[in-house]
């Protein structure tokens, strides 16, 4: 407590005046000459004494009133944070409270709530407060409310979520709330443990000019914390039923080594294996459990660490789906021994998905055979009308068709559903061979080759290719160096067709001899089949499509809570770790199971400095984003004006004076 005009406190000496008068009166009173005290002496002296006690009460009231009034004139104020004294007028306060799962460690959340309460202590009746709880997403709990008690109640009721820290959504929301406010002062208060994992500086974070940003750091507990790493599921299928080898890791971010850490492997709710690992400080260790047999249904696999200060990162959930091979029919002309060799060898490798490639003749393309296949690869074949019609039916039904065009390839003229029209051939055996270029790296086929040194197509030499003209539905994904389309895709019905302008063997190019051949072929087949690898797990905050449950789908969360997709949506957001079950309206057996895990990046306690965040959002560390503002020293006058304690003191002093007058009248006898 300080005073703006402390010299006024000298007025407190005035309190002594009535006391001195009283004392002086006791020593030297006003003397009244009276003819005789004969009668006065007969009156009991106690009545005078009682009256004196009442006088002391009045004296105390007057002294207190005087002290309050003097203190009011001295203009007291509390020299506090910028929050309480950044200027005059009402404030728009946005309180951002981090509720990521790392805030649940030890008593961190309780201290965060306490910090939020303290931050709201200086909120006046004119201020408005918005409450934003955030983790990976930001939730606006209360918008510009004058009811601070309600804000505090919401803070009290809030609990840490399973989400990871992401500052961007919360800060963007705060920025928009402050920008919309008409109040003269704008402030954002961020209560968090300031984990660096969720921080990425961005210009969009900037608060409106003149806003005050107050970071409130809640230190996480110093207890050691071990976190588990994502599982590695390795399918093993040598000479027998497919098995899955589970590899789990443990990360120790503490300063002390963790020895003999117990690690349990649970399958469908039962602990089937356990292992111990030693983890050095600031290090990690992993262990691979003995392979477990894959069953015909999905297996729920969990690796679990013993509980420690932060429980959320001690378990990892994964779903092991039954082994499924993708049936691929490779149809060649026959006669050339090596025409399918490279293709079959390439498809024999790989488990995401595993390909089950078989070679066939053209006449084997019967409806029955096609019904068993997901993808058909035609190696330089002329197509008749009947086969073309069957293939069209196959594709429209959801099958995939890959056309590897060679000198013999031809199609009926009415096959307009194809992505291309073959117009001729290009022979590049003489002169420079053609090169592949013009890749659409944004497409799924070439997306894995986007990064540098992720696959070099330029080394392949193309000696001949068919000149293709894309049909209206065809999309060119790659071209030769002359600009001619090399790969064209079209969606036909539920399936898709990919036309490759040259061969997939060595007859017209040497691509099969290049390292990029294998992943390229895999990508072609995956794209044609429409295969989408189902991840073994998702992360909290991600959305999952629950359309498998039909229109009345019910989602059973790991906590037992029943959730239904929002109106007009078929997806729900994962909010907790564990296994989500999607059921239909009748709630029979689960139609879909999804494993959900917390974002393990949140387990990293590395901290971003609050000052760094302040600089990013205001341009100054913890100060208003006002380019022309002076150094961040809030004048005492402004603080005093904002608090106005003097008004309350003066009011109390006046009340005391009124009480004194009333009491004095009560004590004074009425004269008749």
């Amino acid at each position: 407590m300080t005073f703006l005009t402390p010299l006024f406190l000298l007025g407190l000496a005035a309190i002594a005046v009535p006391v001195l008068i009283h004392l002086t009166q006791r020593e030297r009173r006003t003397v009244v000459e009276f003819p005789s005290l004969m009668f006065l002496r007969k009156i009991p002296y106690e009545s005078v004494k009682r009256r004196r006690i009442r006088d002391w009460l009045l004296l105390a009231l007057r002294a207190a009133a005087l002290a309050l009034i003097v203190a009011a004139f001295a203009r007291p104020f509390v020299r506090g944070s910028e929050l309480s004294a950044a200027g005059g007028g009402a404030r728009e306060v946005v309180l951002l409270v981090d509720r990521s799962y790392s805030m649940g460690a030890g008593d961190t959340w309780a201290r965060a709530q306490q910090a939020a309460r303290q931050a709201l202590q200086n909120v006046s009746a004119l201020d408005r407060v918005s409450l934003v709880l955030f983790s990976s997403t930001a939730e606006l709990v209360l918008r510009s409310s004058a009811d601070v008690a309600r804000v505090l109640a919401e803070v009290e009721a809030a609990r840490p979520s399973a989400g990871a820290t992401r500052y961007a959504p919360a800060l963007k929301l705060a920025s928009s709330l402050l920008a919309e406010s008409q109040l003269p002062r704008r402030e954002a208060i961020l209560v968090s443990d300031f984990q660096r994992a969720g921080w990425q500086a961005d210009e969009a974070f900037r608060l409106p000019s003149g806003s005050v940003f107050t970071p409130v750091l809640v230190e996480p507990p110093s207890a050691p914390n071990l976190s588990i790493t994502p599982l590695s599921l390795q399918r093993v299928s040598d000479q027998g039923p497919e098995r899955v080898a589970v590899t789990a890791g443990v990360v120790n971010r503490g300063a002390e080594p963790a020895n003999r850490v117990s690690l349990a492997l649970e399958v469908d709710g039962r602990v089937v294996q356990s292992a111990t690992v030693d983890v050095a400080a600031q290090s990690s260790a992993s262990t691979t459990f003995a392979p477990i047999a894959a069953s015909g249904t999905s297996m729920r696999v969990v690796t679990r660490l013993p509980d420690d200060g932060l429980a959320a990162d001690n378990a990892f959930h994964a779903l092991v789906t039954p082994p499924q091979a993708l049936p691929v029919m490779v149809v060649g002309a026959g006669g050339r021994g090596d025409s399918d060799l490279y293709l079959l060898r390439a498809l024999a490798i790989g488990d995401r998905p595993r390909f089950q490639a078989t070679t066939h003749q053209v006449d084997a393309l019967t409806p029955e055979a096609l019904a068993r296949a997901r993808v058909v690869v035609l190696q330089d074949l002329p197509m008749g009308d009947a086969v073309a019609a069957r293939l069209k039916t196959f594709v429209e039904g959801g099958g995939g068709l890959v056309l590897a065009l060679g000198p013999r390839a031809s199609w009926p003229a009415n096959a307009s559903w194809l992505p291309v029209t073959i117009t001729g051939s290009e022979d590049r055996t003489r002169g420079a061979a053609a090169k592949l270029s013009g890749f659409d790296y944004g497409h799924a086929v070439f997306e894995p080759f986007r990064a540098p040194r992720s696959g070099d197509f330029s080394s392949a030499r193309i000696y001949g290719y068919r000149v293709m003209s894309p049909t209206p539905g065809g999309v060119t994904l790659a071209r030769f160096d002359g600009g001619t389309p090399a790969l064209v895709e079209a969606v036909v019905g539920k399936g898709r067709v990919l036309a490759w302008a040259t061969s997939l063997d060595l007859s017209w190019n040497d691509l099969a001899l290049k390292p990029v051949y294998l992943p390229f072929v895999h990508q072609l087949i995956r794209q044609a089949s429409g295969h989408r690898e189902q991840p073994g797990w998702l992360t909290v905050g991600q959305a999952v499509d629950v359309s498998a449950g039909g229109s009345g789908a019910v989602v059973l969360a790991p906590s037992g809570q029943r959730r239904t997709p929002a109106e007009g949506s078929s997806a729900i957001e994962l909010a907790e770790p564990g296994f989500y079950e999607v059921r239909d309206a009748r709630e029979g057996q689960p139609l879909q199971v999804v494993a959900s895990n917390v974002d393990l990046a949140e387990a990293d306690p590395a901290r971003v400095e609050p000052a760094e965040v302040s600089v990013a959002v205001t341009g100054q560390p913890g100060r208003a984003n006002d380019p022309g503002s002076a150094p961040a020293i809030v004048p005492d006058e402004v603080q005093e004006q904002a608090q106005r304690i003097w008004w309350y003191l003066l009011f109390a002093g006046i009340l005391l004076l009124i009480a004194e007058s009333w009491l004095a009248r009560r004590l004074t006898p009425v004269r008749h």
Partner: protein
Amino acid sequence: MSEHTIAPGARFVDPAVLARVGNLEFVARSVVDGVINGLHRSPFFGASVDFAEHRGYVPGDDIRRVDWKVFARTDRYFLKEFEADSNANFSVLLDISRSMAFGTRLSKLDYAKTLAACLTYLVHTQRDRVGLVTFDSEVVDFVPPSAKHLDVVLHTIDRAKAERPGQIGPPLKKLAEHFGRRGIVVVISDFYAEPDEIFEAIGPIRFRGNDVILFHVLDPMEIEFSFSDPASFEDLESGDQIPIVPDALAEQYRALVKAHIDALTSRASAQRVDYMLLKTSMPLDHALFQYLSIRDRLTRTR
């Protein structure tokens, strides 16, 4: 002026105004003349030669007092007796103790001096002998009653000052032997003494056949005690001081004063002593009328 009944023909003059005149004889004459002129009937004029009664002659009586007219009618000797008070002694016992100096507008002593002068002048006009005694704790001045002592009495009254503490008992007991001849004794005082002490003091005077009249002179403030501010009250005579909060004491004080006056009134009535309370705010006429009415009663009852 509302404290007392207005007497017919009375000329009310503010005592404070009279006190400022300074010439006591002039003041006394003005007041007394005003009172006398206002009377429609004066039963006291010539009272000294009024017939009283007849009684039978006994040997040794002065034959000059035989009523021959009665002897002529009845052939018996009767003596004719007359009232003998026309030349009565009239003495004023004036208290000049320090407490008499108190007064808010007019000091009690000034009021008492004016009253004494007026009474003396009035009596002197009736050819009575006038005397004066001033006293405090002892006799200060003593002027024996005489028909020629008006000037001396007035002069003595004029120079009387309230300077010393007073005590009513000793001086009055001492004076009793000087009032051997029947007369009228007027005591003017504030009577700050217990009623027993007062009446014990005037008892000897009363027993010697004197008619005693007590004029109790008080300032209105002494009766009403309308002080407001707390103060230290100092006894004018003893110098003692007591811290007083008037608001807290006034009721009890007024009750005590009233009890004191009531006691004096009842004791005076019981002992056939005339008692009259005079506030210094009351005009002197009132006191004079009161005196005359008392004299009238005395004359008729004798």
